[in-house]
């Protein structure tokens, strides 16, 4: 399945779909298992799964009457990027804190002299 970037961004714009991806990051799950923590009906969850599948973020396989879903490679990469972007935002804060700490140290030294 090809990844459509626009479809992937649209898919990731919804908090429930992001949560479904986070759940699938831990391993394969059925629609029932996915619906349980969300207080949503199965059709509603199935609709979200379709969006994720069309975006190439998840894949399904046939197991009797069930179709368990798992993360596609693009879904795994999306989760990684997600953390990488957040990491970068936090780094901005902590780089600033490095400067604050360096200033504090200079002021301490100034006092003792």
């Amino acid at each position: 399945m090809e990844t459509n970037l626009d479809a992937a961004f649209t898919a990731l714009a919804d908090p429930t779909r992001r949560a479904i991806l986070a759940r699938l990051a831990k391993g394969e799950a059925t629609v029932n298992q996915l619906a349980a923590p969300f207080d949503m009906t199965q059709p509603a969850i199935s609709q979200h799964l379709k969006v994720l599948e069309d975006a190439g973020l998840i894949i399904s396989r046939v197991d009797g009457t069930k179709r368990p879903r798992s993360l596609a490679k693009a879904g795994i990469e999306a989760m990684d990027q997600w953390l990488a972007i957040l990491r970068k935002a936090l780094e901005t804060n902590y780089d600033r804190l490095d400067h604050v700490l360096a200033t504090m140290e200079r002021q301490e030294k100034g006092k003792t002299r």
Partner: protein
Amino acid sequence: MSKLTLKTEGDTHVVLTRRFAAPPEAVYRAHTDPKLIQKWLLGPDGWTMPVCIIEAKPGGKFRYEWVNAKGDGFYITGEFVELQPYSRIVHIERMHLPDPTPDNHVETRFDADGTGTLMTIRMTLPDAKTRATMLATGMERGMEASYVRLEGML
């Protein structure tokens, strides 16, 4: 080489580590003194923290308010559970956007690491969905920051 690590743990945790050249006492102070916090806990470029109120004692409350030049803003409120100078802070916080997000239970440790400090922040969210939403909110703010920086370069 990045000094920061960020990872999810289990269903509900987020663990962040960062090393600092300064000793634990200084890093602890930079996390509990409002005048110091206002200098660095700002997020993306263009945001300031005009309000920073901290009652640094067990049961004490805190409130951080951020605004940008466009007049957008949000705030965080929380309570301290435990404060062990200069090694450990336990607190509970929530973001107001303006509706409050579910409580985030946060333990921050400051461990001596050579002449510097290893800081470890362990967040516990009520469930996997809340955690995913929190990470995604942070992601959106981070992306916004990247776009602002990109605009500055063009």
